[in-house]
């Protein structure tokens, strides 16, 4: 079986799709699937050992003022496609996905002169360019971890002027995604909750959706053996993402004893200010530290030595930090938002509370902190659950089964 992956951003530090592309293709290749990749910038770490990687260009002009666009990009605006991409960005539209999909279409047209594919796997691009690709007679599968409607809702929570709302609405290409996703052969999502969300957001029929749990690096994410400290909470995630519900975590912190501290794995001030401003408002700056961006080794060490991981999310398409913490044998306290209830087993590897409830969050944190034996027990069960459900070989095997099903159904209709 030969599969062509499309990924508009391949870098592992861009929203998760880069990590997904890298690890899933690596495991699929081990299971005998031939992999080709069309990928946009920032480009992934080297994957040439197991895949043919074709790089697709992207001008990336969004939010760049015309006078600040680098010369080498300016001179390329003479092409109609590039000028259209530029023009869209002037109206606050985000054309990266549709631009990538059209460039991928033209690249694929060239590739098909010498190669053939059994299936195309798009990684949450859903651009217009996927529709003409259907003309090549190859089934197309896409992975959507969560619909962009969730990101838009989180942005709406920060909007208050008409201009804010207008630019948010213009930014998200939801109409394009709604139209395209309903015309693809199968949609892979990482949770049962995701099926409902896709149905609500895009009117997608549940029978077109397959659930394949996300994978994590089970070998890389295991307890580093460092001494676990008491009363130290850990939060891992983008502090500018309002879906993370950090305000509720900070409110819970104000109700917790002073000795309990919080480490946030993300940039703090001066680069990222919104979380820091809230911390100042709640007067807890002496109990909260930011690590900045960390490498995987440091992240594993943090998971392995902090008392527990907290996630105060209002929505999660999967909840990767919870799965990673569990793999490191760390208990978790999370909300029941989105897919978290499928990742964390309440009472076994952690405790779960309703979103937007700082009192319940505080109570759950205290309950886990007071019982060391329970912490160890939760850690063990968390590791076992992560190995069983979230390893990349399991994710790859389940994805391959979806491929086989899609190909069989597609060919039976020809």
């Amino acid at each position, binding site marked *: 079986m030969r599969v062509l992956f499309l990924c508009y951003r391949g870098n592992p530090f861009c929203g998760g799709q880069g990590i997904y592309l890298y690890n899933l293709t690596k495991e699929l290749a081990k299971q005998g699937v031939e992999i080709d990749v069309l990928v946009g910038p920032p480009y992934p770490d080297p994957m040439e050992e197991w895949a043919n990687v074709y790089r697709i260009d992207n001008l990336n002009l969004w939010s760049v003022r015309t006078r600040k666009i680098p*010369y080498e990009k300016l*001179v390329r*605006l003479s092409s109609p496609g590039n000028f259209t991409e530029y023009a869209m960005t*002037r109206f606050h539209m985000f054309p990266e996905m549709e631009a990538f999909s059209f460039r991928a279409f033209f690249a694929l047209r060239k590739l098909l002169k010498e190669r053939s594919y059994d299936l195309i796997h798009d990684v949450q691009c859903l651009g217009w360019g996927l529709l003409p690709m259907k003309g090549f007679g190859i089934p197309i599968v896409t992975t959507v971890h969560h619909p962009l409607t969730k990101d838009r809702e989180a942005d709406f929570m*920060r909007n208050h*002027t008409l201009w804010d*709302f207008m630019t948010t609405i213009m930014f998200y290409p939801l109409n394009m995604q709604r139209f395209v996703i309903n015309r693809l052969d199968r949609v892979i999502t990482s949770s049962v909750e995701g099926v409902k969300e896709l149905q609500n957001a895009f009117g997608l029929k549940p029978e077109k959706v397959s659930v394949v749990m996300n994978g994590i690096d089970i070998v890389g994410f295991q307890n580093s053996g460092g001494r676990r400290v008491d009363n130290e909470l850990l939060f891992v995630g983008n502090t500018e993402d309002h879906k993370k519900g950090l305000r509720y975590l900070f409110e819970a912190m104000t109700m917790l004893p002073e000795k309990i501290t919080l480490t946030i794995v993300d940039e703090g001030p001066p680069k990222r200010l919104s979380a820091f401003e809230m911390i100042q408002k709640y007067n807890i700056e002496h109990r909260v530290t930011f690590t900045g961006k960390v490498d995987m080794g440091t992240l594993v060490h943090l998971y392995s030595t902090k008392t527990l991981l907290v996630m105060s999310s209002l929505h999660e398409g999967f909840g990767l930090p919870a799965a990673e913490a569990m793999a490191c044998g760390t208990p978790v306290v999370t909300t029941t938002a989105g897919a978290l209830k499928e990742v964390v087993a309440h009472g076994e590897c952690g405790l779960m509370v309703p979103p937007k409830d700082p009192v319940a969050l505080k109570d759950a944190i205290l309950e886990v902190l007071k019982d060391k034996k329970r912490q160890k027990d939760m850690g063990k069960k968390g590791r076992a659950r992560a190995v069983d459900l979230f390893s990349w070989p399991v994710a790859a095997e389940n994805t391959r089964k979806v491929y086989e099903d899609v190909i069989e159904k597609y060919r039976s209709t020809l």
Partner: protein
Amino acid sequence: MPRARIYGYLAVLVSLALGAVFFYYAGIEQVLPGAAVPVLSSNAYYAIAVPIGIVVLGVLGAGFWIGWTILTIKVAPPMPEIVEKNDYAKIKAFFLCLVTLGVAGLFVYGLVLKSYWAIAVPAAAVTLVLLGMVFWVGIAIITTRSTLPRVKGN
């Protein structure tokens, strides 16, 4: 001079020239004393009006849709600090819907009357916005320092 910079100058000059020509013949000449607004046959009028109408109604439809989306947003309540800053966005969105509907009605009425201005005004808006962007890119090319490697002969 690098070829790209020549294209930059060309973009500026051509957009200015085309803009001036369009502005004069489609606008000023039609309002000069004694000017007769062009009379087109029905077929000729609608051959121009239909594509322009699709664009105009598309843009106005998008404006209405944005206003309607803001009016009907159902999400978790905004952050408390945002609630305090009441900017009457929903009231403004209501007026956005009202204005887009009104302009669309006016535009369709103009088409029914076969008014010259019903097609000239939106054509001018689209043309001048496009030429404006070409002009602005040209200016940027001219005034931005080249980062491309120098090629012999340029």
